[in-house]
């Protein structure tokens, strides 16, 4: 799918959420925010800390590897503008606990029956091609090989 995407057409799936090298679909990192006051970490570039309300925030990049905290399997096509495989294939989503002290909700790549709580997962890019519009640099987690 990466080949279909000319340079400049690969947009982050959301501003302030993911980053990567412009022309390199395989490069992805999750952005986070760390509160200068209470130290709490949140997902994405946020202006305020939802724990203590402080607006003294430092942007960080979240660790790419973590452990599965819980998960489920989506058995029916989500409503609205879901950009995953068509025809639909059931897929897992889960909360992945990162060493930054946050659990991130994300799709999980791979066999829906292959997951268990505690398994090691690693961030990987997930390029989502919209029908007539841009491709998005999204993300999911996959089992750490070996």
């Amino acid at each position, binding site marked *: 799918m990466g080949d279909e995407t000319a340079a400049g057409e690969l947009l982050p*799936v*959301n501003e302030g*959420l993911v980053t990567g090298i412009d022309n390199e679909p395989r490069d992805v990192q999750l952005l986070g925010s760390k509160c200068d006051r209470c130290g*709490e*970490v*949140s*997902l*994405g570039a946020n202006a305020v800390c*939802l*724990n203590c309300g402080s607006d003294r925030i430092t942007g960080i990049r979240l660790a790419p590897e973590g452990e599965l*905290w*819980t*998960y*489920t*399997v*989506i*058995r*029916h096509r*989500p*409503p*609205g*503008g*879901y*950009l*995953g495989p068509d025809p639909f294939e059931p*897929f897992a*989503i*889960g*909360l992945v*606990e*990162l060493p930054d*002290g*946050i*659990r*991130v*909700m*994300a*799709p999980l790549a791979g066999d829906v029956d292959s997951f268990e*709580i505690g398994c090691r997962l690693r961030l990987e890019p*997930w390029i*989502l091609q*919209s029908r007539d519009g841009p491709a*998005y640099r*999204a993300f*999911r987690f996959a089992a750490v090989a070996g």
Partner: protein
Amino acid sequence: MPDSDIVILGTGIHPFGRFDKTPEDLGVHAARQALGEAGLEWSDIQAAYLTRMYLPATSGARILRRLGSSDISIVDIEAACASGGAGLRQAVLAIRSGEVDTALVLGVEKMPRGFMDPSMIYADWQVRMGLSMNPAYWSMRARRHMHEFGTTEEQIARVAWKNHRNSVENPNAMYRKAFTMEQILASKPVCDPIRLLEICAPNDGAAAVVVTTARRARQLGGEPVAIEACAHTVARYSADFRCPADSMSATISNPGPTRVTSQKAYEQAGCGPDDIDCFEVQDTDAFCEIEICEQLGLCERGEGGPMAEEGHTEIGGRCPVNMSGGLISKGEPVGASHLGQVVEIVSQLRGRSGARQVEGARVGLAHVLGAGGNCAVTILAA
């Protein structure tokens, strides 16, 4: 009942389901029934609250003007799935302030058919990535609970079995069909481990209560039920990962909204869970009821599964839960659902619940919980 007490004098309900009716039709039906039961006219009402989430602006005025000319305050109140509780609380506070003597709280909803438009609550990127299915959030809670406490799919199914069975006796429920454990466990998973016969559906409905002072209730006669507590809270930071959460803290563990709100309600009422004879709670899915029983203090943390399995939450059990059939069988017309629970509890405390009556019920609790960690708990006493 002390003079200072605030009571429910009349209740009304339009059955929950799917109807070719307008919100006005649904709402007027419930409001008239509540006024009739209270022995009051619309002109006796000094303030009205319309609780709704999906209906458009000024629904309260539009629906209630059908009861006739009036120039009271009519306000729309919204707090997601807890809207009914938030509205009831405003009525209680208005009466306690002394400015209002008698108020009407009316919950009405007419939900869109099928899956809700996810853009209403989810960010675009969540929709694009397939993270916009409400049941997925519930299911992840269930999976974690199973992992931590050994809760089983059978225990979860047992909750659905009980609630479907209870619904057979409730003429206001959308589904009134009992299922066997085998049927429930054989129904399709929606988001593992939660199955089709274990989740609730959005639908249409209305419920209403007339609230007044104990003093006025004594003058009027009738069968008042005291509002011992009515609490509403929104969850603390990261204490809840219901939709549309995108993450949660792994370092800060605040108590969940059900625990916080029920503690406030127990304090207001001067009682604890052991003093309460019957419960209506937010079984958006069957697992959810297990977790809520724990957070309400009906059992220890992690004991919700065994409690369901051993039948303690059945009618006739130690602490009956969802005698009405719960949202799993009634459906969830969001703005009306808490008031629907209150209607059921009032009926139980009056001893008028027929085949689903909890014998000798004197105190009951209604609980809702939903988007954004909105939670409401109401405690009523005969």
